[in-house]
C-alpha cells in the first residue's frame, strides 16, 4: 500500500477527533533542529466544514481490537485497514512541517495487537521526530487506555499535549456503547497524566532544565448526541473534569452517524451541531467568564435554550443584576454583560482610567451594543430611548440565524408568542430542529 492510500485511510479515520489545537506552549527550535510553537496556537488552514486544521491529524493505524459501537474503526466495521510505519509517518510530518502546512502532529491510534504494543509504536514515531529530526514543534498524543503507565510516561515526555477521550458523557452510555472500555480504564491514565504534570511542575521549580512532561497539558473529548444525557449532565461533567483533572480543554463532538446499530441514532440523523455550539459557548463561560455550571442550567432547565446563547439567557433571568455602570463595575461583573467579552472588558478597564466612557466610546472598544445596551448604564443613565419590552430585548439577543429559526418556528406554533421565561419543555416541538438529543430505544 502506498503512502497516498495510507494517508487517505488514516486521516479519514482520525477526522472525528475534535481537537486540533496547537496552543498552550511557547518554544523555539534549537540550533540544528526544526520547529517552534506559539502559546496562542496557529491555524494553518480551515477545512470545508470550517474547522481549524493546525496539526497533521492521523491515526497510527485504524486496526482495532475493540468494538465500540459509535466508532468507524471498530473491529466489526468493514472499512479498509492500514498502518503507518513510525519512520514513514515521521518523514511525512517533517516534510509537511517544512512546507508550513502544519503546526505539528496529532497522533492517535486504534489498538493494534495490544494497548502496550500500540503505545510503543507511537513512542517510536515521536522519538524519531524528537531525536532524529530534533523536531521542536507541537505534538499531541492520545494516551491509549490500558497501556502500561511507564509507556504513558514516556509518551508524555515526548508530546506537548496528552489526551484521553472520555467518549461518552456517562458511565451507563459508555457501558452500552463501548463495552470494551470502562470508566476505570479511561480515568486511570487521565489521573496518572495529571499526577505527572503536577509532579513535573515541582521539578521545574527546583531544576530549570528538568525534562517537561506534556507542557501544554491534558485534554479530553466526548461525543454529544449518541446517548441520552442532558446538557446539564454534560456541563456538570465538564466542570468536574476541569476541576478534578486540571484539564486544559474538554472537546465536544456532535455525533455523526457512521454505523447502523440498534443502540444508536439512525443513520439519517443530522449531527446536533447547534447543541455542540451551545456547549462550547458554555464551556467558554466556565473557563474565561467565571460562570459555574449550576448558574447556567438547573433542574428546571435541563437543556440550553435553542435561540438564545447561555450568557444572554443567564442575563435575562437575572435582570436585577443590571443595569451595570460600565464606569464602575469590576472586571468580573463586566464579563457577565451580554455583548462584552474578555477583550472588550479589558479595554474598558484600561480606557476608563483616562476618562469617563460614553455609549459611543464603548462601541469603539468592541462592545456589541446591540446586546449590551439593555444591561448597561453610562454616567448613571441608561441608553436614551431604549425599548425594554421583553420581545424586543429577546430579539436583540438572537443572531440573524437564530432569529430566522425563531420566526419560522413561531409559524409552526400557530402564532403563539414565545416567551423566554417559559420552561424549556414547552418549546420542545419548535426546538426539534435545534436539539437533537435522541433517547435510546431501550
Amino acid at each position, binding site marked *: 500500500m502506498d*503512502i*497516498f492510500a495510507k*494517508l*487517505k485511510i488514516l*486521516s*479519514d479515520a*482520525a*477526522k*472525528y477527533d475534535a481537537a486540533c489545537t496547537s496552543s498552550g506552549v511557547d518554544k*523555539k*527550535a*534549537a*540550533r*540544528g*533542529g*526544526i*520547529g*517552534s510553537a*506559539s502559546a*496562542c496556537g*496557529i*491555524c*494553518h*488552514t*480551515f*477545512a*470545508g*466544514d*470550517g*474547522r*481549524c*486544521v*493546525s496539526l*497533521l*491529524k492521523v491515526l497510527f493505524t485504524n486496526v482495532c481490537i475493540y468494538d465500540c459501537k459509535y466508532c468507524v474503526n471498530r473491529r466489526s466495521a468493514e472499512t479498509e485497514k492500514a498502518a503507518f510505519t513510525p519512520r514513514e509517518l515521521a518523514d*511525512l510530518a517533517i*516534510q*509537511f512541517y*517544512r*512546507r*508550513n*502546512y502544519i*503546526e505539528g502532529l496529532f497522533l492517535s491510534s486504534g489498538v493494534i495487537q495490544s494497548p502496550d504494543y500500540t503505545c510503543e509504536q507511537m513512542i517510536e514515531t515521536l522519538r524519531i521526530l524528537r531525536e532524529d529530526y530534533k523536531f521542536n*514543534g507541537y505534538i499531541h498524543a492520545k494516551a491509549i487506555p490500558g497501556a502500561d503507565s511507564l509507556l504513558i510516561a514516556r509518551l508524555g515526555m515526548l508530546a506537548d499535549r496528552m489526551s484521553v477521550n472520555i467518549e461518552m458523557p456517562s458511565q451507563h452510555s459508555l457501558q452500552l456503547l463501548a463495552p470494551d472500555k470502562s470508566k476505570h480504564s479511561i480515568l486511570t491514565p487521565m489521573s496518572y497524566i495529571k499526577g505527572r504534570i503536577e509532579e513535573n511542575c515541582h521539578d521545574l521549580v527546583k531544576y530549570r532544565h528538568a525534562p517537561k512532561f506534556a507542557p501544554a497539558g491534558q485534554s479530553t473529548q466526548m461525543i454529544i448526541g449518541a446517548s441520552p444525557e442532558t446538557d446539564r449532565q454534560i456541563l456538570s461533567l465538564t466542570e468536574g473534569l476541569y476541576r478534578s483533572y486540571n484539564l486544559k480543554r474538554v472537546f465536544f463532538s*456532535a455525533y*455523526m452517524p457512521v454505523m447502523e446499530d440498534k443502540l444508536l441514532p439512525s443513520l439519517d440523523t*443530522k*449531527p446536533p451541531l447547534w447543541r455542540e455550539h451551545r456547549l462550547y459557548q458554555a464551556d467558554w463561560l466556565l473557563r474565561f467568564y467565571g460562570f459555574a455550571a449550576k448558574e447556567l442550567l438547573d433542574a428546571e432547565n435541563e437543556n440550553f435554550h435553542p435561540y438564545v446563547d447561555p450568557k444572554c439567557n443567564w442575563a435575562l433571568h437575572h435582570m436585577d443584576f443590571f443595569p451595570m455602570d460600565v464606569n464602575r463595575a469590576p472586571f468580573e461583573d463586566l464579563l457577565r454583560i451580554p455583548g462584552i467579552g474578555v477583550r472588550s472588558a479589558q*479595554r474598558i478597564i*484600561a*480606557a476608563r*482610567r*483616562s*476618562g469617563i*466612557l*460614553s455609549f*459611543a*466610546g464603548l462601541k*469603539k*472598544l468592541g462592545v456589541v451594543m446591540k446586546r449590551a445596551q439593555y444591561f448597561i448604564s453610562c454616567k448613571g443613565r441608561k441608553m436614551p430611548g431604549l425599548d425594554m419590552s421583553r420581545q424586543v430585548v429577546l430579539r436583540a439577543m438572537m443572531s440573524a440565524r437564530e432569529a430566522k429559526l425563531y420566526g419560522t418556528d413561531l409559524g409552526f406554533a400557530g402564532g403563539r408568542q414565545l416567551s423566554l421565561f417559559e420552561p424549556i419543555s414547552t418549546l420542545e416541538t419548535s426546538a426539534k430542529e435545534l436539539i437533537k438529543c435522541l433517547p435510546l430505544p431501550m
Partner: protein
Amino acid sequence: MSATADVIYNYDGTFEGLLCCVFESYDKKEIPIAIVGPDCVQNMLLASKDILTDPLKAKRVQSSIPKKISYEVYEFVCQAFLTCFPKKELYILLFLRQAYKWGAQIMNRLTDEIVYPLYKAVQHLQKESHLLKGFIRFSVANQVLISEIGPKNFVLPLLKQHFMERYPEEKFLIYDKIHQMGLLYQPYQARIVPIDALEMPEFDETEIQFRQLWKLFYDTIEIKGRHNEKCRMTQMPKRYWDYMTEFQTAPMVRRKIVEGPEKLPIKNK
C-alpha cells in the same frame, strides 16, 4: 500652541522621513493637513513642503519616544507605519503629538478619534500577520523554501522572528507580491530586500508528491456532513486562497525563477 497650517508635507516614504516630519511640525509649530509619500500625485491647490530626511533629526525624535513616552508607544508607532491605513502618516504625527502630551497613558485612550483609527489599523496588521504565520505555504526547490504572499499590510517585519525560530537551519524566501519585497533567510541571518518580480522555479517530483499528499489530506479531513462554507470563509478569507497549495488546481505549474535586485538592503525594524 500649534495650529493647522494649509500645508502638505512631502516625505521620502521611510520611517526616518516621517520622524523628520514630526520634527518639522514641532519646529515650525504647525500641523500639516496631509503628509504624502513619494508615489503620491501632487495636489496643486495647496502649498507643499519637501521634508528632507535628516538622520540626526530622525534619531532625536526616535530616541525621545521611548524616553519621554514609553517603549510600548514606540513599538505601536513602528507597527502603525507598516499598516495599509491610508492616512497613517498624518495620524502617526497627530498621535505622537498627543502622546508627548499624555505620556504612556495615551495607549488607554482607545476611544480617542486619533488613537482609535490607528489602533484599529495596527490590530488589522497584527491579525493579518498572525493568519499568515499559518497560511504561508512553502515550496521546496533546490533546498530553498519559497513562498509568495499578497498581504494588505506590510507584514514581513512581523513574520521575520517567527520563521527564523521555526526553520533555523533552512534557507527560505517569502515574497510579498503587493509590496514587492522579500524576506530572505539563511542560517542564521535574515534580510528584507526589494524584489521586483519572482517566478517560481520548476518543482521536482518529490515536491509535487507532497503537494498532492497535502491536498489529499485537506480534502479528507473535512467531515462532509458538517460542510460549512460560510464558516470557512470567515476564518480564512478567500483572498488568501490563491497562495495556498490546497486550493491550487494545478499543483505542478512549471515556472522559472528570475532573481530581483537583491543588493539593496532596506531598513527594517
